């Protein structure tokens, strides 16, 4: 699970032009991991077992860990690192090192973080652990020690069957996350959180610079109602040359 700025947050480039200033952003659980967490809790409710949340991030990550515990996780492992998560490979190595010592059947990730949009960590961790990984899943059925997952691909979906332990990365359609009640928020405070300091390895990918995207030139209102339609078609053909 990953802590990310809210998707509605304005993103400011820091003065070094190589990082993002998140000092006034509001942080949330990465939306794709909310779908993954909900799936984990539903599996627990149906098949029993326990849900552990593992997260890598700075001190302040505690706030989203509490949220995850309120949403149904039983315990959490917080790998504490203040270094910015800019390299999926080093994040994956730190997570895999921790996961090697844990026993699990199902390892769920969000398909990507809505901050760096890399979409790499889940597959990388699975490769490091030597376990199957099905990415971008929209459906997961578990029975008899195996899983049948549907991955969303261009123009449809692919069904993949796998045995445990296995990793999956969640697409938006996987589940509809629940809301935590006040009682659950209070109960979350009693759930165990193990905190460990981790050192991330050197990045093999380096940010050279960060820019704002070029602004779009101002457009024009062609007109009102159906009367404007012939003009629009003419402009698309003659001016924009896209038809």
């Amino acid at each position: 699970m990953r802590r990310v700025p809210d998707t509605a947050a304005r993103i400011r480039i820091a003065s070094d032009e190589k990082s993002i200033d998140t000092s006034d952003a509001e942080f949330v659980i990465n939306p794709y991991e909310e779908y993954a967490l909900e799936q984990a809790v539903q599996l627990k409710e149906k098949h029993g077992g326990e849900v552990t949340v593992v997260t890598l991030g700075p001190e302040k990550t505690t706030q989203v860990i509490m949220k995850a515990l309120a949403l149904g996780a039983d315990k959490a492992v917080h790998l504490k690192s203040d270094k910015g998560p800019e390299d999926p490979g080093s994040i994956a190595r730190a997570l895999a090192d921790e996961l090697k010592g844990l026993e699990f059947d199902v390892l769920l990730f969000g398909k990507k973080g809505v901050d760096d949009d890399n979409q790499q960590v889940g597959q990388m961790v699975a490769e490091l652990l030597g376990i199957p990984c099905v990415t971008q899943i929209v459906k997961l059925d578990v029975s008899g020690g195996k899983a049948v997952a549907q991955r969303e691909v261009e123009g449809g979906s692919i069904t993949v069957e796998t045995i445990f332990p296995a990793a999956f990365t969640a697409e938006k359609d996987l589940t509809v996350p629940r809301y935590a009640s006040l009682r659950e928020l209070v109960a979350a405070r009693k759930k165990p959180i193990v905190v460990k300091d981790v050192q991330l390895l050197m990045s093999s990918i380096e940010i050279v610079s960060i820019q704002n995207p070029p602004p779009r030139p101002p457009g024009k209102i062609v007109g009102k109602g159906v009367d404007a339609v012939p003009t629009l078609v003419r402009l698309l053909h003659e001016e924009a040359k896209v038809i």
Partner: protein
Amino acid sequence: MTGDVLVLAESSGPTFRKATLEAVTEGRRLADLLNVSEYALAIGNGLKNRAAELGKYGADRVILADDPSLALFHPDYYRQIALETIKRVDPSIVLAAATSTGKDLAPRLAIHLDTAVASECTHLELENGKLIATRPAYAGKVLLRVKVNSSPSIATLRPNVFTAKEVVPGRKPTIEQIEFNRPDSRMIVKEFVAQGAKKLDLTEASVIVSGGRGMGGPQNYKILEELAEVMGGVVGASRASVDAGWRPHSDQVGQTGRTVSPTLYIAAGISGAIQHRVGMINSKVIVAINKDPEAPIFGFADYGIVGDVFEVVPALTREMKAFYGKA
């Protein structure tokens, strides 16, 4: 290290994806700048007669792994073939399309090769022979320029951003077919189920007609489907209409849906909230139809019509029919 460029060529059935042809064209450009060869690794089923096509887009050599068990993407099978080939060819740059396959496979390769991937790149350049990639982050709110300091540099290219071009029309690449010995795997890739009659994914379409909350309900998307059909496009949707259950998630354009860059994006009854905007802002031309003249979408659309979508869209469909009828 030979310094060559290798492109992972992906197929959809017996044809190469357009996004793959875009990557092969871009790979040729980089290979020319580096004065090296371009390899394409084609993995799939029934590609024997199509492999030479990659030559026209610039590949000097095509390595072909062709087997019925490779018809659909299987992470273990594709990873084994790609790893063996990369270790043998020893390229300095590996490119793939940022499709569901490319985005799944590239990080797996990177972790085994102890290198990194620049995801969903929109621009590539070379600096002292090193690859510098531009890639959007925070759903495109910012653009990162990144350098991969290990070799090979791996990059996935966002579909519809790079141009696929037959740069060397007559080129006949050498074709080497490799043996595929199926490794043990704990995954069984069973079947592909197509969603509806949609031929193209949003990320691959050159025309998208999207509807938002202003469409009023799922039944009203018919008028968008009619317009899309006349223009050879596909229908998209805003998050509001997906969350309302009017359209499937695979139609969603925006931060938690698809990021698209078609030639023409027509937004009907979409207000243009930030999380939608970031998913379609890189469209070449944006047309907005909305009855609210104050809707934010008019602030970044190239052409806007203020009006009722239920009147304007059918009129546009008739006008387009007439236009394409004459053309």
